């Protein structure tokens, strides 16, 4: 087992490419997301209704070293200020294989 952190990001579905681009830029290799999340935040309700995914969220999970997060922290903050959403960080252990 190895201590790692988990970064969770929730933002609009249409912005998922932006998030991936940011991860790419900082060479974060691994991530997972679901792109049919619904929810509510400062920008109102995202109820999944509509024909374009405009009202749907993507929920990202990124397991990485704390240093990795330090690198993406500021650009991520900027991105989320622009596009809305939340970023939550917690600790845990990774079962290496």
């Amino acid at each position, binding site marked *: 087992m190895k201590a790692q952190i988990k970064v969770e990001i929730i933002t*609009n579905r*249409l*912005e998922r490419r932006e998030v991936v681009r940011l991860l790419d830029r900082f060479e974060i290799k691994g991530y997972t997301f679901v792109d049919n999340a619904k929810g509510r935040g400062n*920008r*109102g*309700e995202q*109820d*999944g*209704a*509509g*024909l*374009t*995914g*405009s*009202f749907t969220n993507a929920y990202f999970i990124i397991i990485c070293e704390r240093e990795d997060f330090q690198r993406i922290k500021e650009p991520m903050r900027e991105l989320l200020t*622009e*596009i*809305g959403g939340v970023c939550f960080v917690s600790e845990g252990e990774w079962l290496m294989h």
Partner: protein
Amino acid sequence: MDLSIFLDNLSNPAILFFFLGVFAVAIRSDLNIPSPISKFLSYYLLFCIGLHGGEELAHNGLTAEMFRVLGLAIILSLVVPIYTYFILKRRLNAYDAGAIAATYGSISAVTFITAVNFLQGQEASFDGYMVAAMALMEAPAIIVGLVLINLSQPKTNGTRRRRAMQHALKEAATNGSVVLILGSVVIGALASDKHLQAIEPFTGEIFKGMLVFFLLDMGLLAAKRMGALRKQGIFLLGFSILVPLLNAALVIGVCSLLHISQGNTLLLTVLGASASYIAVPAAMRITVPKANAGLYVSMSLAMTFPFNIIVGIPLYYYVIQLLMP
């Protein structure tokens, strides 16, 4: 005034299922079309209408009326967002004003298809290039809306502004429904008649039924957005009915001067009067995330769309028949 045209519209299951969708949301039913199905149905409608438009375009060739209509369509999609922007700017911030202006400058494919369906019910003719007109009108208003928003901003770095515009242009031009409708028109024009006939049962025969089913879904979607409308002031509610009427009057006037046929006039009127809730929201969410999507989507989907399909289409057609004998 002869009401039969309105009553006939109300006896159309497409309109009735729209009401059923609204009713279901009103009584808090869990009736709900899964979103992959919504998307399939809306792509299917664009696919069919595009193929038929392209096919007719290839048969009839290029005509003078066609160029008049396409020119008019593009002018319309540039003028509407500009004039509405300045109306909106009196009450709203630049982001919301620009986004709503783009919404009303662009078009609603489903309203257009409903109007086509209406014309077929009236046994009135129209031309295949109207589909091209529709396709051409989807994107320009988005660009205009963004230019207006940008102009309203304190001078920012030139490169940055250019980047934002390129981004917007890209979003507008590569939107899935724009690509599908334009692609289908081109394919309809290129494909051989033999092959197009072979797929007619799919693209033609079951089309109207699929439209009816889809309007049930539209009713559900529109009604879900009606809640958000209650919080909006009378200004925006008024806007979402009066601007379509104004645009319709404008189009009907110009078309009657240019001697455009009744069917084509109705369709162009509907394009002018309708507001986007597919291409524009998808582009605006990304290029102007600061605009309130709840605002522009609600107005177009929960007010303008129902108004057009229930009252607007027969009303416009009634006026067109009066003015253009």
